């Protein structure tokens, strides 16, 4: 108890492990550098900000790698901030996804007369928030990290200032985000009120069954999860996603659907594994409902979409549903949390690759067609076979067709389900299976459009793909295919990422 009361004993200089903080520090330096560059460079040389941002992100990856090589778990600030394998993997995921988003943005932003420097600045801020999120094991840190990654994103969603849709996207995202934060904060306050601490491991010890009045704990857990359910766009907290995705600049949509969502899941994982691990009686049913609803609604509504981005929005909602499935199996049957965590991490990694890839193709294609309609992809195969093949790869990977990466992700989900082996989890598994067939329909319909339909207006001028986009496509495509064929290493990441407290070990 005394250790928790530093104030009573006077100020004790906290131990700071700079190696552990290096990724964030490098990111911060990059943020400042981008700002300065934006001030210094004139309009013609603004592209340099993107280069700086990209380098910054890559630079931040270096300490992530050295930390991983070092291997030791680093715990700071009384357990509020931890750098372990899980944190490192999630940071690597955020940073690589962020890098790909920067690659996607270069031409999009550069050619669109948007504020380029500030754009990259905000993107990096958001990445910083995510990076912090990966290590947070404390409610306040999680909250701050969440807002840091969200608030720049609210603004980025409205970055196409003259487009009302973009404004609207920003507004909706912002309002819903604030609402969700409010609910989450209320839940956090309840948890704090019960346990007297914001550190997750302490909370975990304080909310075991029978320790306190149950309803308040239940409501606290529930509200906190709602806050992140919003972030991962789980139904019924998903409603912002389609509109925001459609209206936001496409690279930002990619960012939101991948990095931001992944951050949500990372936070959820930490909360559930470290904080709430003993209370699967509360969150497992909640995740069950969320997962079932999310998969079903996401897929079914996606069937009726005509706008490709909007369709992918619903698709990413549905994908979030699959990722929620392992959460619903936690603490059920023989599920010891190991395979569920592996599944979540694996899914996030694969999902990042394939979804970013799909958006990269959309960006490349819409550079020519200037349209977001699915029909604008008509006959793509005949004039841009490379893009069509890549898009096909990404879409069918999302659908989970072997040997593309998506299958191993889905596979680990099913494995988590069967590991639990209870009736409820099996039902969820079947819902997931049925959903993956429904999903196939709309993924296939895009493929159909590209391969089997005529070219609209018979405009067969080839598409020029800028270098940065090509790199992004290359990274994502290689990742998607290689993960599918040799899934060993990616699943190994998932397996490595044991969380020290709770289920792990």
């Amino acid at each position: 108890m005394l250790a928790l009361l530093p104030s009573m004993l006077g100020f004790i200089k906290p131990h700071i492990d700079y190696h552990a903080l290096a990724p964030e520090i490098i990111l911060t330096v990059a943020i400042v550098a981008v700002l300065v560059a934006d001030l210094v460079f004139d309009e013609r040389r603004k592209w340099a900000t993107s280069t700086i941002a990209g380098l910054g992100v890559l630079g931040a990856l270096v300490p992530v790698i050295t930390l991983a090589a070092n291997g030791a778990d680093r715990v700071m600030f009384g357990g509020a901030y931890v750098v372990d394998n899980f944190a490192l993997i999630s940071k690597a995921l955020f940073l690589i996804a962020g890098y790909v988003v920067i690659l996607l943005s270069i031409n999009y932003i550069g050619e669109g007369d948007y504020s380029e420097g500030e754009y990259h600045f905000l993107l990096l801020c958001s990445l910083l928030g995510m990076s912090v999120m990966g290590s947070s094991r404390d409610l306040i840190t999680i909250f701050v990290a969440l807002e840091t990654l969200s608030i720049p994103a609210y603004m980025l969603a409205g970055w196409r200032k003259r487009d009302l849709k973009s404004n609207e996207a920003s507004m909706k995202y912002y309002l819903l985000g604030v609402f969700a934060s409010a609910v989450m904060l209320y839940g956090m306050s309840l948890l704090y009120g019960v346990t007297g601490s914001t550190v997750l491991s302490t909370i975990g010890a304080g909310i075991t069954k029978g320790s306190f009045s149950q309803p308040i704990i239940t409501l606290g857990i529930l509200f906190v999860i709602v806050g992140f359910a919003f972030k991962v766009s789980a139904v019924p907290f998903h409603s912002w996603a389609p509109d925001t995705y459609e209206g936001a600049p496409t690279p930002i949509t990619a960012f939101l659907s991948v990095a931001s969502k992944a951050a949500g899941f990372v936070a959820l994982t930490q909360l559930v594994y470290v904080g709430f691990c003993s209370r699967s009686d509360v969150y497992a049913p909640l995740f069950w409902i969320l997962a079932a609803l999310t998969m079903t609604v996401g897929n079914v509504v996606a069937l009726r979409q005509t706008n490709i981005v909007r369709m992918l929005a619903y698709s990413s909602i549905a994908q979030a549903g699959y990722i929620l499935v392992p959460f619903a199996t936690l603490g059920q049957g023989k599920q010891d949390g190991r395979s569920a965590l592996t599944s979540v991490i694996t899914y996030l990694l694969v999902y990042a690759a394939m979804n970013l890839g799909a958006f990269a193709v959309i960006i490349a294609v819409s550079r020519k067609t200037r349209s977001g309609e699915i029909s604008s992809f008509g006959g793509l195969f005949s004039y841009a076979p490379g893009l069509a093949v890549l898009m096909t790869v990404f879409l069918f990977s999302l659908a989970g067709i072997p040997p593309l990466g998506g299958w191993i992700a889905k596979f680990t989900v099913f494995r988590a389900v069967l590991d639990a082996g209870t009736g409820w989890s099996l039902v969820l598994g079947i819902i997931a299976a049925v959903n993956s067939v429904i999903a196939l329909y709309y993924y296939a319909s895009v493929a159909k459009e590209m391969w089997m339909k005529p070219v609209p207006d018979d405009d067969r001028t080839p598409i020029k793909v800028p270098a940065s986009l090509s790199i992004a496509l290359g990274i994502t495509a290689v990742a998607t295919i290689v993960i599918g064929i040799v899934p060993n290493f990616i699943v190994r990441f998932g397996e490595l990422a044991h969380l020290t407290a709770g289920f792990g070990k």
Partner: protein
Amino acid sequence: MPINAFLLLAAFLFCTGLYGVLARRNAVLVLMSVELILNAVNINLVAFGTRFQGDVTGQVFALFVIAIAAAEVGVGLAIVLLIHRNKSSINVDELDSMKG
């Protein structure tokens, strides 16, 4: 005095704000209602802090919330202005160019 006095007051503020955000059309009023909610949370945090000897975590949390709330309001108003410039209206229920 009972701790619940503070907590219930906070709950009331929360729900009033909740009503506000759902019922008010004007975006600025919605933002004001959000502030009600956040303040309710802060009351909670500070009140809960009294349950634990010498613990100021609640207060610290409240401070962070205040800071972030300020940032949020700033951003929110910027977005409202953005919309106002393009649409000359800040009624949130008129924002439905995307749906379905």
